């Protein structure tokens, strides 16, 4: 085939999108019936390269539309509009245990999408593509502002949506790996929530004094958010993943200062010594360390540390006292935390207490622990350095890629709707009938 006769045209729309937006990948003017490979390539901040690709056949008009046509092989198959992002995996020869996470969220993730002749599976670096485009994926919408927060000894970052406000607020907590993880808060700010990402395990104050933060740290974060002139102080929610769930539930139920309008808990549990500080809760987990199991690949499985779910009320957050709506997101193949068992117990406790109307549970078969924003590549396991242990371990998170990716997409959508309804809603149309 004389390449010059058929200038294959590849387009991706939008070429600049938010991380949770879909795109349409379209090939036109290919030789009808020809076999083509569409490949995405990304080099992340720590220098590792990731690739995803699908095998397609051009139709009689020489067109391939990734949102309508099936991939018959590659890193994903079937009709998968966003398969080129969620099926990303490290290129052959990369080291094991990698996980794709962006640290600098003020610049976009850059992805090159190219089309190659034939159904290729390897050696892409030596092939010349027929066509290629550059795509940008952003965590921050235009006009969203990032404000570092150090007030009251906090290590945090506040993301404000564009506009006059005031905006409902959100406290965003990640898990045992610590660090200030900003990308989810940046993306939620792009949806209209003033979101504060908080580092509570490796905060500056902890690194300097060697002491873990106490409950007041979170109350300070709440106060700082509440008092911000562009934040609607009466509409603040909290979202936590993994260990972040432990903090979220504790604050939601027991804090005299923090009054949440809603809470979202992803891949976590309510099991913890209820009067415990952050440090005491971590020690409680460590005590059960001998329940650690290992997979055949020697990956660490920590889900048993909190099992069986205790009956002792001093070891579980009393969710029966919860006064705000709670959304639980559970991956049924979570190998790191017993989130499914915990969700069932939470449901029972709330049914008995009579507040189960506040509870919504989203439970996904074959999804793992790391339920991230949509199209984030699935990591079934990755190396982890937690604050409790000095060396890195290979941690098994769980999940099967296709189902895990669908779970991320579905959970995010429902989570944004949940937050919208509870933080922006509350408007009863009938009360305006006089207008």
């Amino acid at each position, binding site marked *: 085939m004389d390449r010059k006769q058929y200038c294959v045209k590849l387009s991706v729309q939008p070429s600049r999108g938010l991380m949770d937006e879909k795109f349409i990948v379209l090939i036109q003017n290919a030789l009808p019936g020809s076999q083509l490979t569409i490949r995405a390539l990304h080099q992340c901040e720590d220098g590792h390269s990731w690739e995803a690709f699908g095998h397609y056949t051009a139709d009689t008009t020489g067109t391939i539309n990734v949102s309508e046509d099936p991939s018959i092989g590659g890193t994903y198959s079937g009709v998968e509009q966003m398969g080129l992002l969620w099926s990303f995996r490290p290129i052959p020869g990369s080291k094991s245990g990698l996980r794709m996470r962006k640290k600098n969220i003020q610049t976009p993730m850059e992805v090159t999408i190219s089309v190659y002749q034939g159904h290729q599976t390897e050696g892409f670096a030596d092939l010349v593509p027929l066509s290629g485009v550059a795509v940008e994926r952003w965590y921050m919408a235009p006009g969203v502002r990032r404000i570092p927060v150090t007030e009251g000894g906090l290590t945090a970052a506040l993301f404000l949506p564009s506009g006059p406000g005031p905006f409902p607020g959100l406290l965003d907590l990640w898990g045992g790996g610590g660090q200030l993880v900003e990308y989810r808060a940046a993306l939620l700010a792009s949806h*209209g929530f003033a979101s504060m990402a908080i580092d509570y395990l490796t905060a500056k104050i902890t690194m300097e004094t060697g002491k873990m933060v106490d409950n007041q740290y979170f109350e300070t974060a709440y106060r700082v958010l509440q008092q911000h002139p562009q934040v609607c102080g009466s509409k603040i929610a909290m979202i936590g993943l993994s260990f972040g769930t432990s903090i979220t539930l504790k604050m939601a139920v027991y804090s005299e200062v923090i009054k949440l309008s809603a809470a979202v808990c992803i891949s976590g549990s309510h099991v913890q010594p209820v009067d415990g500080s952050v440090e005491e809760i971590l020690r409680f987990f460590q005590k059960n360390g001998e329940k650690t199991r290992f997979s055949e690949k020697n990956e660490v499985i920590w889900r048993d540390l909190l099992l069986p779910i205790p009956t002792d009320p001093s070891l579980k957050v009393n969710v029966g006292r919860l006064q705000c709506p709670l959304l639980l997101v559970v991956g049924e193949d979570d190998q790191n935390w017993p989130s499914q068992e915990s969700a069932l117990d939470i449901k029972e406790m709330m049914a008995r207490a009579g507040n189960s109307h506040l509870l919504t549970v989203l439970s996904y078969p074959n999804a793992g622990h790391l339920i991230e924003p949509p199209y984030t590549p699935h990591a079934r396991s990755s190396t982890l350095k937690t604050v409790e242990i000095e060396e890195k371990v290979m941690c098994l998170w769980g999940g099967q890629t296709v189902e895990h990716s669908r779970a991320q997409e579905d959970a995010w959508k429902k989570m944004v709707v949940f937050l919208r309804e509870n933080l922006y809603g509350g408007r009863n149309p009938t009360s305006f009938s006089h207008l």
Partner: protein
Amino acid sequence: MWSVTRPLLQECTLACYRLLSAMTQAVPPILSITPSRALVDEKFQVLVENLPPGCPVTLHSLHHSEDKDDWEAYGHYVSDHRGVVSVTEDLSFGGTYTGKEPMGLLWSMRPVPGSREGLRLRKINVCTPMLVNISVHSGHEDFRDRTPLASALAERWYMAPGVKRIDINKQGVQGTLFIPPGPGPFPTLLDMWGGGVGLLEYRSALLASRGYVSFSLDYLRSEHLSADVEFKYFETAFNIIRNHPQVIPDRVGILGISLGSTVAFNLTAYSTIIKPRCIVCISSNHYHPPGTTLKAGFKILSKHFHKAHFDENNYMSWRSFGLDLIADPSNNVEVGRINCPMLLVNGCDDQNWPTVETAEEVARLLREGGKEHLLSRLAYPGAGHLIEPPFSPHFRATKFIILNSKKKVILLWGGHTKAHSDAQEDSWRKSLSFLQLHLYHSPSVKAKL
């Protein structure tokens, strides 16, 4: 269509405003623009949610230009029973545009009250986006007196990610080259602007974002010694581009607007070296007295300025004396010599030059030579001379500095905003599909052998 009477509207507005003030403390409306980052020829959806039902609001767009002027557009809306206003679906009851106009907040932009006269909006730095702030205000009258309820920012880009911008200064030829991302090589365009301006890159950047290597040629900067020297300049430029490693040599076209279209006609008709695969001429002009450089030709033109017609605003129109000039065929490029497919795009309300008459003359000459099948024509009623990329604001008349003199006039370009904007959108799409057909799809000459 809803009939919204004034007293009812005022009452509604006051009630809503009171409600909104009380509620703003608790719950503001949400304004979203999707996509928030887009190319300038892409549409967006502007949506406001969480308003009280039946609430009069105004959507307002604001842009602060590189020249430090403020441009705005606005439309008056009423929310539905769900408290939603969708600019894509709902009707604007008034403002700078009315009716169902998804992109009205862009194309109906005009300088804010109190601005200087005769302004024109064009982006010089194409590597950064045009920023447009869109906000929603309560009420219709005097909406600017109230702080917005919500706002969002849109980025409008001329350059897609991965497009490369390269300054060219080679063999005396100057200009800016834009190369699409990807391995290449690519079909290519020589892009030529009109008279009276410096080098404008934005259309080239956009064409590169659509898959064409595009060269914005600076052809008015220097004073060429003779028509032959000037002609050679263009031929050299064409060769430099044709020989560029990222260019498919037999898939090079020419796109020109106004004076740029004159250049396109001239080169295609007379050059033995330049054989474009196709040409697109916007606001067609084939006036080019033989043996003159473009600047000399312009000087001849300016001798007719005393015959120019001035309208009631004292805006200057060249249309009528232009018609006299082109009546003499010896003044014009012999377009009948052209042998490649041509697309002519014109506005029927063009007050700057008799471009529709020019197109008709081109058609007649090609018909005589049995080549009418090469020609496609688009003539838009109500459109003026400055046919820009989609959603660009319409300029009916703007300041113009007469070449080589310090004299400033306000030139009447013509066009009525709504019709002109529709023409910009339609002609861009049709121009791209014409270029795609001739530069991407058509089989190579080699294939026929």
